[in-house]
C-alpha cells in the first residue's frame, strides 16, 4: 500500500507517495537521493544511518518514513553552511584524522553533534560511552574521540546548516 509522506529535510519541504514499509533511510537515500546517509547493518547497531529528527539524533533505519510525518529532518548534507563552510564538527573530524574510509563518518558526525548538545563539555570517557551506538571499523575511534573533544569547544557546534 502506498501512503503519502511529507516532512522537511534540510530545510526543504518534501512530499512523496511511498510504500508503507519504506524505512526513513530508504526514503532519504532512494527517493530524495541524499546518499550521504549510509546503511551499514540490518539490526540498528551501527549508526551509519544517523540523522537528526526534530533536533535529536535517530537511526533512520529504525523507523519507517511514515513515522517522520511532519518532522524536521537534518541529514549530513544539511550540516555544513550553504556556502560550503564545514560545520565545526566536520572540520574537527578532518583536522584530527577522525575518518579513514569515511563510511561511518556521516553517522558519526550526526551523533557527535547530538552528543555535544547533551554533554556540552564532554570528558573523554563520556564521549567513548556516548558513541556506543556508532561503529567504525577503520579508525579505532581514537581520533574520532579527539575530534569530538576539540569540536565541543566551538560555540557554534550545536548549530547546523545556515
Amino acid at each position, binding site marked *: 500500500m502506498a501512503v503519502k509522506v511529507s516532512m522537511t529535510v534540510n530545510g526543504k519541504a518534501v512530499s512523496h507517495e511511498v*510504500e508503507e*514499509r519504506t524505512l526513513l533511510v530508504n526514503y532519504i*537515500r532512494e527517493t530524495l*537521493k*541524499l*546518499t*550521504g*546517509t*549510509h*546503511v*551499514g*547493518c*540490518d*539490526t540498528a*547497531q*551501527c549508526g*551509519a544511518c544517523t540523522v537528526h529528527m526534530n533536533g535529536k539524533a535517530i537511526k533512520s533505519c529504525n523507523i519507517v518514513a511514515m513515522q517522520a510525518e511532519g518532522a524536521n529532518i537534518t*541529514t*549530513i*548534507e544539511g*550540516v*555544513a553552511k550553504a556556502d560550503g563552510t*564545514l560545520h565545526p564538527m*566536520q*572540520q574537527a*573530524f*578532518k*583536522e584530527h*584524522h577522525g*575518518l*579513514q*574510509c*569515511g*563510511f*561511518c*563518518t*556521516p553517522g558519526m*558526525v550526526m551523533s557527535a553533534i547530538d552528543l555535544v548538545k547533551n554533554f556540552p563539555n564532554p570528558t*573523554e570517557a563520556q*564521549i*567513548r*560511552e556516548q*558513541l*556506543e551506538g*556508532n*561503529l*567504525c*571499523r*577503520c*579508525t*579505532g*575511534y*581514537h*581520533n*574520532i*574521540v579527539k575530534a569530538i573533544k576539540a569540536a565541543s569547544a566551538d560555540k557554534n557546534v550545536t548549530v547546523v546548516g545556515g
Partner: protein
Amino acid sequence: MSHDAFHGRLEDDRMVTGSGTYTLDWDFPDTAHAWFVRADRAHAEIVSIDASAALAHPGVIAVLTGADLEAAGFKSLPVITMPLKPDAMKPLMPFRPCLATGKVRLAGEAVACVIAETQRIAMDASELVVVEYNELQPVVDSLDALKPGAPQLHDDVPGNLYWDYEDGDRAGTDALFARAAKIVKHDLYNHRVVGHPMEPRCCTGVYDAAKDQYFLYSPTQGPRMQASMVAKVLDVPTDKVDVVAKDTGGGFGIRSAPYPEYCVTLLASKKLGRPVRWNGTRSEVFLTDNQARDFICHGELALDDKGKFLAMRFFIVANNGAYLAPTGLLAQTRSVTSCITGVYDVPVSHARIQLVATNTAQVSAYRGAGRPIMSMLLECLVERAAIDLNMDVVEIRRKNLIRNDQYPYKLVNGTTYDCGDFEGVLDDALKAADWNGFDKRRAESARRGKLRGRALSTYIESTAAGGIPDDAQLLFEADGTISLKSSSHSHGQGHETSFAQVVAGVLGVPMNIVKLRTGEAGMRVGGGGTGGSRSMVSFGSSYLLGAREVVKKGREFAAKELEASPDDIEFDHGEYSIKGTDRRISLMDLAKKYKGSAGEPHPLNSVGSGKWGMTFPNGAHIAEVEIDAETGVTEIVSYIAVDDIGNVITHALVEGQMQGGLTQGAGQILGEHAIYDRDTGQLLTGSFMDYPMPRAGMVAGLEVLDHPVPTKLNPLGAKGVGEAGCTGALPTLANAIVDALRPVGVTHFDMPATPQRVWQAIQAAKAGNPRALQTYTLEYA
C-alpha cells in the same frame, strides 16, 4: 616531512559532507534489482529448484540459477596460486560456483538470484523460490573434518584436505630438538572472526552491448586485480571487464577479490539489457563474506641450558571453509610462515600447515593475513618458555633477538630481513611503558579489587609481498592538473593524499592539483591492488620514480625554452632555471606550453614502475589490562606500541593505521568470534547483536611511537604500516590477559576474553582446572 602540521586529507571534504560515492551511491537509469536466495542449511544436495511462483510474482523479471551460469559458460571463482617446490603436494582447488549447483556447502550459499523492478519485490519473490534439498551432515570443525568417516565436502578433495603445506627444514629441526636441554610446547586456538568493513558487500553490474564490455561497480581494493578475476569467471579477456569504484567503505583484505554475486549481476545485466544492482545486507556479510583466522596452532621451542633458542617447529591446522577464497592458499600458508622465527636468531625451523574444508564460510586474507597467526603463536610460545624456565620475559627475548650486526639475516625458508634495530625498539617500549613500575600499578589495581596483567610482544611481519611490477602513471591534463593512476585502490588509507604528497614533493607543485583516479572505467595499468600493507612501499615508490622521470623529461623542454644546454638546467621547488642565473620557468608552465600534438598523450606523461621487495615492519608492544574477577570484564588500561615501519610519509595517516589495526586486534581478543553450531552448521553469531564489534570504549590509553630504521629496498625507505598494529596486538593482549589470570590459577586461556569466558576460566581454576578454556591440543607431526 613526517610531523608537519596535519590539516586533513584531500578526500576528507567530500567524506565529511556526505558527498562521497560509495558503491550504492551510483545511480543508473532503468536499474533492475537482484536478491539472492540462500541455502538455509549448511550441507545438502539440491534436488530441485522451482522458481515458477517467483516468476509469476508481479514485478519479477527473471530468476537465475546455477544452470543458467553453466549454460553461459561460467568458470570457477579463481584462487591465487604460488610457485611450489618440486616435491611438494599440489593444493586441491575444487570448483567454486557463483550459484550452487548440485550441492550447497555452507549455510548462506547463494542458490538462485531473483531480479525484479525493485529491491523489495525481489526480496518478496525470493521467498517464493522453492528449493528441495536432500540434507547431509555438516562438519564445521577442522579437526572433526580430518577424521576418518567425516562428511566429505568435495569429491575432488579426499579427506577434506585442500593442502598439506610445509616450510623450513624438518630433518635439521628434529636433529636440534633431539639434543635440546629443554623443549617448551604451546597450543592455542586463533579463533574465527568476520572482517566487517562498514560498507556491506554490494554491486551494480552493467553490460554495454554496443562495446561488448562489462562494467562492475563494486567496493574494491584493486580494480584491475578484481577485473582480472571477474574475467576468469566470465571466461572473457581481462580487458573486457572494468571494475569501477570511487569510495570504498573499508576492505582489510576481504574486499580484494570478487564475490559470486558480482559475476551474477554482470550476466543478469547482459541478459536483461539493464543495469542490475545488488544491495547486500550485513546479514549476508556475516554469512558469506570471506571470514578470517580459525587456526589451531601447536608450537615447540628447543632451548639450550642457558635459555638460548636452538630451533622451532610448528604444526597448524587451518579451517579454510567450504571453498578456497581467492587468497585462501597464500594467506593461510606462505604468509603465516614468511617470518617463521620472528625477531629471534633461530637458524633452523619447520612448519606444517594443513588447510581443511568444512561447511563454513571461506577464509581469506584479513588484516595481517597469516602474519598475526605466526606472531601470536611465537610470542605465546616465548612467553610460555619464560614461565616454564623461570626466566624474565624481557631477558629471554633480549637474549635471543637478532642483533644489528647480523643483517642481512636469512631465515631457514629464504626470507631475508634487510635491516632492523630490535633491541632499540624494545628499549624504547620498556621505557615508554614504565616497565619497572608495574608492580606498583598491579598492587594499586589489587586495592581496587582488580586483577592487573601486562605483556610484551616483539613482533615482526612481512609486507609488500608482490610478484608483479606495480605501475604508477602520471598524466598531465588539459585543465592544469596531474592525474595519478594505479591499481591500488584506497579503502580508507588516504591514497589521494599520500600519493599526491609523494608526487607533489618531487615536482614542487601544490598537492591539490595532483588527483588520484584509481577506479575509473577504461583505466589500464599494471600491478596489484591494495593489500599486504604494500601501497606506500610499492606504489608510493613507483610514483616517486614516475615523478623523477617527469622532472627528467621536463629538463629537455626547459632547456629549449630557456635556450640553454640541459646540463646547465637545474630543478628546484617546481622550477627549472639556468644554473647561476635568474632565468627560470615552472614545470606547470612548461606543461602548458609543450602539450604535444592534439590527440597525442602529453609529452611529460610518465610511468614509474617497480617490483619492490618484501619489507619487515616490526615493533615492541606493551599492554596492561585489568580484569574484574567478579564479572569477568576485561579492560585495556594502557597500550604502548613502538614500531619500526621505516620512513614515515604522513605521520597522521600512519598513526591512524596503527590505531585502527590495534583496535581490530583488540576486537578479536576481547570479543569478536564467529561461532558455528557443530550439529547444524548454522552461524550462531550472525548479527551485531551476537557479535561484539569493538566500540569506542574498548581501547583507551593508546600510545603509538615511531622508531624508524629506513629500508634500502625501496626509494622511500618505507616498510608498510597497514597491518602491523593487528599483528602486534593479538599476542600482546592475549598474553596480558593470561598474565592477569595467572595469580588466580588460570594457566591457559584461549581467546576471546569475553566476560563470560573469563569468568568461567576463573571459576574452573578455583575448582582445580587451570586450563578449562583451552579449546584444542595437537601433537607435532
